[in-house]
């Protein structure tokens, strides 16, 4: 019995020491800065990030001309990132007049990309956001020749950066690069606050104008309806007073 107890204690001490030897080894290794995760850890904001892989899910980009404003992505999104408006262009096709993706809500699940019937929505490997941005500025108009062109992470970053500034203020080289990658005709850049708006005030004004127009249109429609109703109402109206008292 005593021998069993001695053996038990010795075994216990020995197993503790074995464990501590292992961890002590790690400890020393770590302090020397070699081995373990320490040696391969990148301190991200200070050191540049590595691209994880081609299928990394980063920021969303919408290729504006291909988008048909079908709201499939909007429906698929579990957290309601999208705010979009559409309008008819010259060929009577729907195109996005506003397509904001609130990246502060996005959980990068990729459901919207799968839902998109025209493949205009795609994910890029870019994942860094300048904290000054509100993150909704990824709509670029590209001409049909440029649609096949893939925008890589650095490209998207550059686009994002340049998209913050009005075109006139860009350097010539930047402007040329932009023209190469996105449609040089028309308001090809959608600024960070939406289609061609570079300040929140611009966008607010435009939104307000659109709202006002919509309300005016609705009011007009309502008025027309009321008028029509008024025009249609009199004929059935008279009978009750006429034959109301049989």
């Amino acid at each position: 019995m005593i021998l069993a107890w001695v053996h038990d204690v010795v075994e216990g001490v020995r197993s503790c020491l074995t464990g501590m030897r292992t961890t002590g080894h790690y400890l020393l290794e770590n302090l020397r800065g070699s081995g373990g995760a320490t040696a391969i850890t990148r301190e991200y904001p200070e050191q540049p990030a590595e691209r994880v892989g081609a299928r990394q899910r980063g920021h969303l980009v919408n290729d504006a001309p291909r988008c048909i404003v079908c709201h499939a992505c909007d429906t698929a999104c579990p957290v309601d990132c999208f705010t979009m408006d559409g309008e008819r262009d010259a060929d009577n096709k729907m195109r996005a007049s506003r397509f904001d993706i609130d990246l502060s809500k996005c959980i990068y699940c990729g459901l919207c990309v799968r839902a998109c019937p025209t493949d205009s929505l795609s994910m890029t490997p870019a994942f860094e956001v300048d904290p000054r941005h509100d993150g909704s500025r990824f709509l670029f108009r590209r001409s049909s020749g440029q649609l096949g062109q893939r925008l890589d992470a650095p490209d998207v970053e550059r686009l994002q950066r340049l998209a913050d500034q009005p075109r006139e203020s860009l350097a010539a080289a930047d402007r040329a690069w932009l023209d190469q990658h996105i449609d040089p005709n028309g308001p090809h850049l959608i600024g960070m606050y939406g289609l061609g708006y570079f300040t929140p005030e611009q966008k607010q004004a435009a939104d307000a104008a659109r709202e006002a127009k919509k309300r005016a249109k609705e009011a007009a429609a309502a008025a027309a309806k009321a008028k029509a109703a008024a025009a249609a109402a009199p004929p059935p109206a008279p009978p009750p007073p006429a034959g109301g008292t049989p």
Partner: protein
Amino acid sequence: MTGLGHAVDTLAAWLAGGPPGWFAVTLAVLAVWVAPLLLLVFPVAAFGQILERKIAAAIQRRKGPNSAGLDGPLRLVFRAVLCLLPRERQDRAFAAFCNLVPVRTALLWSRRLGLGQFVADGIKMLGKEDIVPRGADGAVFRFAPYLALVGAFLPWCVLPFAQHLVMLETEVSALFVLATSGLVVVALKMAGWGSGNKWSLLGGMRAVAQLVSYEVPIGLAVGGVVLWCGTMDLHAIVGQQYAPGVFTLLGWNVCQGPFLLLLLLVFFVAGLAECQRSPFDMAEAESELVSGFNTEYSGLRWGMFALAEYTEMLLIGALVATLFLGGYQSPIGEQWLLLLPTWLETLLHALILGAKTLVVFLLMMWIRWTLPRFRVDQVMRLAWLVLVPLALLSLLGIAVTLLVAGGTTEGMAYGRLAARPRPDLSWLPWLLLWIVPVLAAVVLVRAANARYGGRHPALRRLTGEGA
């Protein structure tokens, strides 16, 4: 000798402008004893937390806190000092200061080491809501953290930091330590009961069962040292461990035979259990009890429990050093250290005690981040079936040594009390004291190995081998 006690009297008399009343004495005690103690232990415990996180990271092969530097707190200090200047001037001064090369290097290193972490943690804790659950027993719930802190801090009063740096010299300081640190049990029980939460209650019950059980081996271990040194005064125990010559080390209790070494191990393991550290963190046991007795605590009240835990760890470290490792004495050449001017000697002694404490502290962390948590029954088994028998065995061995050796020597007359005699072993009995028990142990272990083989008995039972 007791500079601090004298300082209390003087200050109290000065405050009262005559013979001091209780109020003046309380104020003086607060100013001379409590405030410096808090000022010393709080930062040390906070630093211990960072150290722990770094060590944990290193053992788990990651980096640990590496971004929170001291530049943020420094900026706050600048703002506070220069509060009359406009904001940009403050910032410019701060930037100029930070751009000095040594400052910048220091700040960078403080970031890399995560030194600002405890400031951030403290501010975070201050900002948290103090929640008292509806079902809680309010007064008990609120009071428990304070009691835990008191239990963790009181034992420091009698601890000799240096020859002239003891707050309270009593003849029973070893008993005082055991008695006051027992307050923590009550605090944990109160926290568990007062929270009105089943996890807390279970954690509190476990804490009480564990702490009360481990008081026994701790008490026996301290008793062994007391038996050997013939005094209950910690300061006198330190004085007993003095040895003249180069190797003061040889006088340390831990060198006085395998029984005291065994007691050191028992004390250390039981101390580990006393401060509820992994592998003995039964009372918190995240994976079983959410957070055990402090499940319902938030903000500063939680912080007090954390602080009490670290203070207690430091206390165990300091006690191990005091009881077994020569206290504040230098391992070599203590006799020349004593020739230095008092202030320098005091400083060096305090630093040496700090270094010894730190070593034990590091060992505790190493163990914590290596071993998994015990089961409740294993914890009890370890206390009653391993530590207590070992402690009793050592006590017996020490008693027999004392009977046989008998001879005594004078230790250094440290502290208020003259040291009492303890056996003076010349080299032959000293060697015998080491060799005989160690040989006996080796024989026993070999016999056990021969009988039970290399495999653990539990494993053998499982596989049905050797039945």
